[in-house]
Each structure stands twice: as C-alpha cells, then as structure tokens.
C-alpha cells in the first residue's frame, strides 16, 4: 500500500552520453522511440541513443489529433497502415501500459457524388487488403452518429460515408511514454534537450553527429525521425528532400457530456472531429498552404474549423474553446512517407509524414529497426523509398490523406 506514495520513474535517469553508439536516432517522438524499442525487441540491438532537442514527444507526437485508421487509397498505403493499426491493437498489453485505444470507428463523410465514387474506390482497395471498410448511406450514418446534423438542406449535405470500424482514437502521450519506457527497458538511452547541429560524413558514409554544444558522437547508423525538421536534418547530411514544412492546427472545446463516440471526418469541409475520453471535442483541419517553421496558430483556422464543426454539431454553439495549437508537418509531393535508406550510407530517414505520421509509429519502428539491424529494406516499406522521387514513381495518397484523418 505504501507503494502508491513512492515516486516511480517511467525510465532511467538520463545517463552520461557516450562517444559512440551503434545506432543514433535523431528525434524523441513516437517514430524515434518506436525504432529504438523494436531494435531491442526484435533484433537485440541495444547500443542505441535517442537525441531529442526538447522533451520527448514535444513535436508532432504530442500535437496530433490521436486518430488511427488504415482505410487508405493505394494498396501500398493501406497495407502499411493496416500493419500499424494491428501493432497498435496489441501495444497496450505488450508495453504493459494502458494506451487508452478506443476502436470506436471512423466515418469519412461524402457530400457529393464524386466523393461517393472516391469512397467506393477506397472501400474496394481496402477490402482487397482485408481491411474492414465499407460505404454506408445516411441512415446508417445517423445510427452511428445520432448527435450529428444530417439536415438535407445543409450547405454540405451528408450523402453517405466511408465507414472504417477498426479506426479510432488513442492517447497520444501514453504512446510516447509507453514506447519510451519500452525502449529504455530494452537498453536504449534517451537524451532529451540534446540538439543535433551536424552530421559527420566520411567517404559518403554517415559516421556520427555533432551536437549544438560542439560535442561529437560517433554512430554506426544515423536515423532521422524529425518530422517537420526533416529537411534541416537531411541537409546536414548533404541531402535535399522532396518536402515542405507547414503548420497543421487543432483545438479542443471545454469538456462536455458524452455525445460522440466515433471519429467524424469531412474532407470537403476541411475538418475532423472526435470526442476525447475527457469529454473535449477535438477538432483538426487542414495545413496552411505556406511553408513555415513557426509553430503558431492562426485565427483563420479557429474561425473556419468552428464554422464547419457547428454545421455538423449545432448543439456545440455555446461550447467554449479551451485551447488551440499548431505542429509542424513534413509534406511530401504524393502524401506518402519517405522511409528507409538514402544515398548517404548509414543515414536513414523516416520523413514525409505530413499529417498522418502518428498512426504509423509502431510499423515505422518495426520496419526501420529491421532495416537498421539487417541492412535490408522490408518489403512493406520498399514503395516508400526516397529514390522513388528521383525516378518519378509516386504513390499518390492525395485522395485519402489530405485532411482525411
């Protein structure tokens, strides 16, 4: 009983940095931590160091809207994200840490005939990959989301939806903490407040990193998992990426009584809505079109997202907005990730995550760990190699990724 008063650490105190590690991971977010976790779990690689410029989970891992799903439009994407959702399903038990994963279902609304065609195509692609995903009509939408307005004379009337039962929401901070504890127990060292300022190369091979304080750390392999800052980190290795950095914003209302137990997405209205376990309505929208590294939100977002939310949920008219925030997204030209080796030996990237990186964290960790440990690119991520942009072999997820959380 006294045990509950004892201050328990989730992971070890930060150790002294060594001069060399087998693997140095830049970025202490969900992807970096997952890579360290699976390196130890699947491959016994434990001489691993995670360098994070702020606190862990301070970037996109702590700013996303916590939605998981796998109903993508390309077979490559759907397969990949499906593997991720399946890993997430077992992750609470595996990490022995409750990640509060609610597979409450996910509805992508269609407001036009054209949108119904796209939903039908996605449902077919999904079903061929064995993913539970189907097109439903307004009656079933009303049954699944009875609080939502289905007025036929609305600006954007709901004609139907793509229904994806395994989709849902998960506690994003818990994912970060659970993976950090798992990585730590596996032997990896987590070093917050260590900013990387350079990547050392010798003969076209990455050999280590230099920190902002000038300190040098040697590495057998360097992995960048830095989302919005990927271009900057890759630039240190002499690489240019097909990425632009934009802000994506979200906001929550004050906590309300349970009203909505399914994720609602409308691409046409540029909004996605869920209700958290605390009762807050969590509302996200689209990225700003201009590039920026400044994580400051815009009033325009709050106005537009509020307006569209009220069209779907007029009963929220008097709900107050509790807070809003912005995070950085690394947008790739085809809305698919850039994952794996680069032309700099010993330097791999997990980048190009745009607005959908969080839902891929475990599968990125597992496949990147396999790549680093074995030197072979797993089949699942071969379509996502950086090289595809040199040869114009894009994997276009435009129809299922932009604004479609």
């Amino acid at each position, binding site marked *: 009983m006294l045990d509950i008063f004892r201050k328990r650490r989730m992971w070890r105190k930060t150790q002294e940095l060594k001069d060399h590690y087998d693997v140095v991971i830049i970025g202490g977010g969900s992807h970096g931590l997952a890579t360290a976790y699976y390196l130890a779990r699947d491959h016994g690689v434990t001489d691993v160091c995670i360098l994070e410029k702020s606190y862990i989970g301070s970037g996109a891992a702590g700013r996303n809207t916590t939605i998981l799903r796998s109903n993508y439009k390309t077979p490559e994407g759907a397969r990949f994200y499906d593997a991720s959702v399946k890993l997430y399903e077992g992750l609470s038990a595996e990490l022995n840490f409750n990640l509060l994963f609610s597979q409450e279902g996910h509805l992508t609304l269609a407001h036009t005939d054209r949108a119904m065609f796209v939903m039908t195509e996605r449902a077919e692609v999904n079903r061929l990959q064995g993913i539970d995903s189907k097109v439903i009509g307004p009656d079933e939408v009303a049954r699944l989301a009875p609080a939502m307005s289905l007025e036929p004379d609305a600006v954007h009337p709901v004609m139907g939806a793509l229904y994806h039962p395994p989709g849902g929401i998960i506690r994003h901070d818990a994912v970060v903490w659970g993976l950090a504890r798992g990585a730590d127990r596996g032997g990896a060292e987590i070093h917050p407040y260590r900013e990387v300022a350079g990547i050392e190369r010798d003969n076209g091979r990455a050999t280590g990193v230099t920190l902002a304080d000038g300190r040098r750390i040697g590495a057998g392999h360097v992995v960048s998992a830095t989302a919005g*800052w990927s*271009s*900057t980190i890759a*630039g240190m290795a002499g690489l*240019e*990426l*097909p*990425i*632009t*950095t*934009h802000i994506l914003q979200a906001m929550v209302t004050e906590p309300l009584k349970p009203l909505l137990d399914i994720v609602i997405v409308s*691409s*046409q209205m*540029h909004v996605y809505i869920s209700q958290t376990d605390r009762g807050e309505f969590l509302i996200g929208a*689209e*990225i*700003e*079109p*201009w*590039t*920026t*590294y*400044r994580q*400051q*939100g*815009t*009033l*325009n977002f709050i106005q537009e997202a509020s307006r569209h939310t009220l069209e779907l949920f007029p009963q929220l008219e008097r709900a107050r907005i509790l807070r809003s925030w912005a995070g950085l997204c690394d*947008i790739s*030209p085809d809305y698919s990730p850039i994952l794996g080796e680069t032309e700099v030996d010993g330097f791999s990237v997990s980048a190009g995550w745009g607005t959908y990186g969080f839902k891929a964290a475990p599968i990125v960790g597992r496949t990147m760990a396999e790549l680093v440990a074995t030197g072979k690119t797993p089949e699942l991520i071969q379509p996502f190699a950086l090289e595809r*942009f*040199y*040869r*114009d072999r894009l994997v276009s997820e435009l129809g299922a990724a*932009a*604004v*479609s959380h």
Partner: protein
Amino acid sequence: MSYLLTCPNCGKREVTDFAYGGEVVPRPKSKPSERELNTYNYFRRNVAGVQREWWNHRSGCRAWFLAERDTTTNEVKWVGLPADRDSRDGEAGATAHGAQGPGAQGIGGAGSGGVTA
C-alpha cells in the same frame, strides 16, 4: 490572420488574401536528365530561415510577385515584382537564396504549394 504581406501593387494585406507559389527554384537546363527534371519538380530546400518565394495576389490585383520571408518567424523582409529581382540581387548578395540562378522563372513548387483536399 496570421501575418501580413505587402503586395507590390496594392500594399499591405492579410496573408489569406494571397496564394502561395512555393520557394523559388532554379530551372533545369533545356534538356535535363530524368533525375534533374524530377529534382526540379519535387525537391525543395525548405530552409528554416530566409527564403525567396512566389506569391500571387489572388484576391487583389492577381499579380505574381516575389517575397523574402524568414520561415522561422514569418517576418517578410522584402517584396518585389519579378522585374525588381536583378536590382535586389545586386544590393543583397548576402541573403539566403544562393541556389537560385539568374534565369529562375519557376512558378513555385509543382504540387508542393497550395494544398487542399
């Protein structure tokens, strides 16, 4: 509103008045290799710092113009019409757009700029 941008023709406006055309990228040579062409189409410097970029005054005079903006603060350092570029390059050789050739005419990033569903 998040920041202001000054149109060389119309003056100061909210950024929502404008369409973003992406960073200025050097044109490939006249017969580019596949890789050179794809680099031009897809790859970007995406600097955290001062960047020269294309803007269009969509809700105003509809002119395309150039701006130099610090992407870490969104502070706009300079705006000018394409014809002003040479004189700007003469006076501000130290600004961070060295990759840009004198003949750069690209209208921003194909597929990388304005993103909607």
